[in-house]
């Protein structure tokens, strides 16, 4: 490194630094090489590679289950790699193109119709019908999302749904009765208005407005409850440009634009902390947020209904899947065996108690079990019961992301007061029709 040899005082100092740096590199390089040699080599048994995104309590519970499985199955090693769920798709697609996918990956359910097109994805239709699996014990929302055109491409990994989480203290302060199971959207809107206090910067409710799928699925519940559908049967044309769609949009608009009782969160990040800080009266959200509200007394109620419509009380579920990639018959068999064990009732029970995640099997959700879960996470039982209100799933089609973007822009433009509900609906329905026609043709 001649550039270090200056010759003057400063040069001497750099010289010294350079030697130190160089020796560090040599030492560290040797350390790294040493570890390179030790990796690889699976021996006689199976090593199942699995990419998952568990953190915190979920990560601990998963590590525990893996160690139990390895003890019960000597010779099998489950090698898990943390990949943030949001990044998994990019990593999996790159690996598939490079010819080195993992044996198992945790993938969002919304990707399922597209993931199903990957040739390496293992068809599990027969596996889940096998003895002892009891496929129908999984919630219908889960089975819908794991199945694409009649082919099962995943095993349920996580299930959730949307319900209303409300701040009991703010309700009492406003002199309001807490929401009951038979409540209506009209009540929701009225309560939101009464819970709003501009002087205290307090809002009745909140809505996420980046225009992403998070914006969209909140609206889709209202659409279904108003008796509407997203697409017409056959998934070739929009169905949401209906009176039901108008009712759903108008309800949200009334809070956001007319009453100013709705905090709009364009980044999908601040709303939960605002609720936890006692600034928001009610939130439509999922069970994952319950542990994020330690500072307020919160209660949970199912979604309100639109009286006079056929919809009743509904909700939407966003289950995620374990997907197996074909790395040879014996690897696939080992991966299937592990997943079926992982999602068997005993392990589901352990998982839900340890993490507060909703049980992915109906049989586990017995009343006594829900009471036990509720002790550590009050209100979670309502979310489990609410799984019974999942009557439909989003369209399982590859072009759903495009549909979602159009609906997202429609909802945001109405909430920001940029367009009127009917005009926005008409324009969005027309765009969806065009998009569906283009993808079919």
């Amino acid at each position, binding site marked *: 490194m001649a550039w270090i040899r200056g010759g003057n005082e400063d040069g001497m100092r750099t010289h010294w630094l350079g030697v130190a740096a160089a020796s560090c590199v040599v030492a560290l390089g040797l350390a790294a090489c040493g570890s390179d040699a030790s990796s690889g080599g699976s021996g006689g048994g199976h090593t199942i590679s699995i990419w998952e995104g568990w953190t915190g309590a979920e990560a601990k519970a998963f590590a525990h289950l893996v160690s139990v499985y390895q003890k019960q199955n000597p010779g099998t090693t489950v090698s898990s790699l943390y990949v943030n769920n949001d990044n998994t798709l990019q990593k999996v697609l790159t690996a598939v193109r490079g010819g080195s996918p993992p044996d198992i990956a945790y993938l969002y359910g919304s990707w399922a119709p*597209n993931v199903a097109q990957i040739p390496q994805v293992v068809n599990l239709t027969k596996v889940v019908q096998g003895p002892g699996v009891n496929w129908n014990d999984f919630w219908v929302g889960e089975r819908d999302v794991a199945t694409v055109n009649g082919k099962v491409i995943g095993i349920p990994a996580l299930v959730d749904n949307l319900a209303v989480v409300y701040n009991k203290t703010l309700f009492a302060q406003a002199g309001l009765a807490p929401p009951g199971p038979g409540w209506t959207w009209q009540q929701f809107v009225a309560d939101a208005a009464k819970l709003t206090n501009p002087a205290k910067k307090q809002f009745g409710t909140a809505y996420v407005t980046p*225009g992403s799928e998070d914006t969209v699925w909140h609206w889709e519940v209202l659409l279904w409850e108003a008796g509407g559908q997203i697409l017409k049967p056959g998934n070739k044309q929009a169905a949401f440009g209906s009176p039901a769609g108008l009712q759903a949009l108008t309800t949200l608009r009334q809070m956001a634009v007319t009453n100013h009782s709705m905090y709009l969160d364009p980044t999908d990040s601040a709303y939960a902390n605002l609720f936890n800080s006692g600034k928001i009266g009610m939130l439509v959200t999922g069970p994952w947020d319950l542990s994020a509200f330690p500072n307020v007394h919160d209660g949970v109620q199912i979604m309100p209904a639109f009286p006079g419509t056929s919809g009743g009380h509904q909700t939407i579920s966003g289950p995620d899947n374990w997907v197996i990639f074909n790395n040879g018959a014996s690897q696939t068999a080992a991966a299937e065996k592990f997943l079926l064990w992982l999602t068997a009732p005993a392990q589901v029970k352990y998982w839900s108690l340890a993490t507060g995640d909703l049980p992915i099997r109906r049989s586990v959700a017995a009343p006594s079990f829900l009471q036990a879960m509720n002790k550590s996470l009050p209100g979670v039982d309502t979310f489990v019961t609410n799984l019974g209100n999942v009557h439909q799933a989003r369209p399982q089609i590859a072009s759903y992301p495009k549909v979602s973007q159009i609906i997202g822009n429609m909802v945001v433009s109405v909430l920001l007061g*940029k367009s009127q509900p009917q005009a926005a609906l008409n324009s969005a329905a027309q765009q969806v029709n065009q998009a569906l026609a283009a993808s079919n043709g």
Partner: protein
Amino acid sequence: MTAPAALLRKRLESPPARAGRRRPRASEQLAGWAFVTPGVAIILLFGAVPIVWSAVMSFQRNNLLTGKTPYVGLRNYRLMLHDPVVAQAVQHTFVYTALFVPGTMIVGLFLAVAMNRKIRFISFYRTAAYATMAISTISEAIVFIWLFDPSYGVVNYFLSLVGIPPQQFLNSPSQALYVIVAMTIWGWTGFAVVIYLAALQGVPQMLVDAAAVDGASKWTTFRRVTLPLLSPASLFLAVWLTINALQLFDEVFLSTQGGPLNATTVLVYYLYEQAFVNFNFGYASAIAYFLFLIILVVTAIQFRVGRRFTYYRS
């Protein structure tokens, strides 16, 4: 006496022995190629090969899923011409770049000049500037989202002090992009400061002193002496910031996700969405190539204009 000067004097005192045997042209060719080969080989392998590869993909239909990649000719490029979001994204990308690049350079130059002196705590100030580069984009995004929150943010509070009504910022399709500009200028200020500080070390104090002796004001000296001597660094910064600005992604991804109503959808964010949300990888590659052409033209213009205004001492 300093090293190069000492070396130079020593060398000058002993006349060269082999000077007559040099063959400059051929040896210069050889040395040039020998010097660049190791570095350039790596860059070509990991940079140029993938670029040609993705050029091929831009003529294919490719969803990254099925493994089937039929050639579709110019179809992806034709689609692009009729895609209104592409037109919007181009506009947002240009507006963003036109504000971000000069903004960052001016703030960076100002702070670098302020920090180019021996005053107390100067190490601390310089480290603070550098630190803005070290902080992760997610921390940066979270803090800016809070500062610009319409109801609870500090910025609206300060505006209210001077009688300006609260703004909607990230909730407003007409303002969101400017918030992203502010956020990224903040994030890149440290970079500009570090580059300008390094370049300011090449400005001979003697020239500055001479101008002062001639009665030039500090501002005139700065404009007539310092600024021209900084022009190679300015060209470097302009090119580098532009290349990065035209490829803005992280800050949008972590804050507005392109919204509200596509107001912050820039080209790379849109092509990311096409590739990994809509599974149109061929289309995404075509958009990337369109962007590549834009960057190429803009950079070529910068080098051309730069050549006229850049002052190299050699």
